[in-house]
């Protein structure tokens, strides 16, 4: 009991300095919160066609239904999937999503002309798809063995964030049973991509992936 109190006290001190805490990485930093470059979650899983890998990159979290219709992808933002296929945590391939007037253009997977924090659009577009308007059925591009979607979806993330905040603030000692999903009823701006696993160039049956949101400079 004493240990738990000590733990909570330390947690409280730590988290007060952290300010408002969201999760997974929804609005995780001062620099990106509220911007189109705020990535909320990244998912990577085998597709319905088990020869394919699906990738989900969600952005602009905690959209209420009333705010979702006005949400959009920014012409100045690139959402980039980075693929390291030789375990050195440097991207060997990228898939780049860029936007113009309500259409998403997808480039890659392709070896980038340079690695790191600065990117240019590489090669020619693999596919393009209209961003699905709020309230409409998903518009899906399917060409060149590549599927792509962009638009608002339900946030797949679930977490009793409010109780977590109470615990770290020292006003609660444990989670509730059942908990309450803080992200219930909220949306995100999603990008979903699916393409053959063979395009990943995996070594020993695995790759490392991450997403980057980049802004035009």
């Amino acid at each position, binding site marked *: 009991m004493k240990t*738990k109190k000590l*733990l909570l006290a*330390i*947690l409280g001190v*730590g988290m007060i300095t952290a300010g408002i*805490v969201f*999760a*997974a*990485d929804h609005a*995780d930093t001062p*620099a*990106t919160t509220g911007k189109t*470059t*705020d990535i909320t*979650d990244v*998912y*990577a899983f*085998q597709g*319905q066609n088990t020869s394919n890998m*699906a990738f989900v990159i969600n952005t602009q979290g905690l959209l209420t*239904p009333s705010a*979702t219709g006005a949400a959009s992808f920014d*012409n100045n933002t690139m959402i980039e999937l*980075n693929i*390291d296929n030789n375990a*050195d*945590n440097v991207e060997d391939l990228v898939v780049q999503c*860029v936007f113009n007037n309500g259409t998403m*253009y997808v480039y890659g997977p392709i070896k980038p002309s340079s690695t*790191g*924090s*600065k*990117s*240019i*659009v590489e090669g020619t*577009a693999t596919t393009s798809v209209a961003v699905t308007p709020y309230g409409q059925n998903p518009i899906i591009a399917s060409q060149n063995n590549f599927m792509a*979607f962009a638009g608002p*979806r*339900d946030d*797949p993330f679930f977490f*009793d964030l409010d109780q977590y905040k109470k615990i770290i603030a020292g006003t609660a000692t444990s*989670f509730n049973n*059942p*908990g309450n*999903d803080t992200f*219930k*009823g909220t*949306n995100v701006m*999603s990008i*979903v991509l699916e393409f053959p*696993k063979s395009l*990943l160039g995996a070594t020993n*049956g695995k*790759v*490392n*992936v*991450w997403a*980057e949101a980049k802004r*035009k*400079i």
Partner: protein
Amino acid sequence: MKKYTNIYLSAALLTMVVVFFSACSKNSDTTVNVFAGVTYQTEDQMARPAINTVFNLGADKDAYNAALPSVMGAGFQSKFQARLLALNPGYTTNALGLSASAFTGVLATDVLTVSTTGTTTFFDGTNVLTGRALGDDVIDTELLLIFGGPAGTLNAGLTSDKVSTNDKAFLSTFPYLASPW
């Protein structure tokens, strides 16, 4: 002097025009060419869920978001370890058998390892960090590894948020995510 400047400017303009038109000629869809010559710079990097949220404080949140995975370990592992021990002063090892140093070494490099040959899941009771499926209870996994101790049995009230599913059912077909609210 002014004359030379003008000549340089004209040459530069001509080069730009040539570059622009050659870019256009490579692709019949001229709309795509609005992206030619544009440089984009990273503002937010992310792979595993909630890592930045939990392990970074203050200015480090922005620094971590803009960092490259290849240098994250060197820049952030020791900070993550201090943060882990602040969150759980009783930490010895976790259910993966990782010391504080080893665990934060894994966490600091924010990449998601994905299997191209088997099950893709954050944790399903058997497979660990082979991807991330939509329904994976990633928060419980992380809470368990931070607070649960070597057998996952310590701090029972802190190792699950008792929310185990999404608020809408996922689709079995592309784009997999549920329709928006």
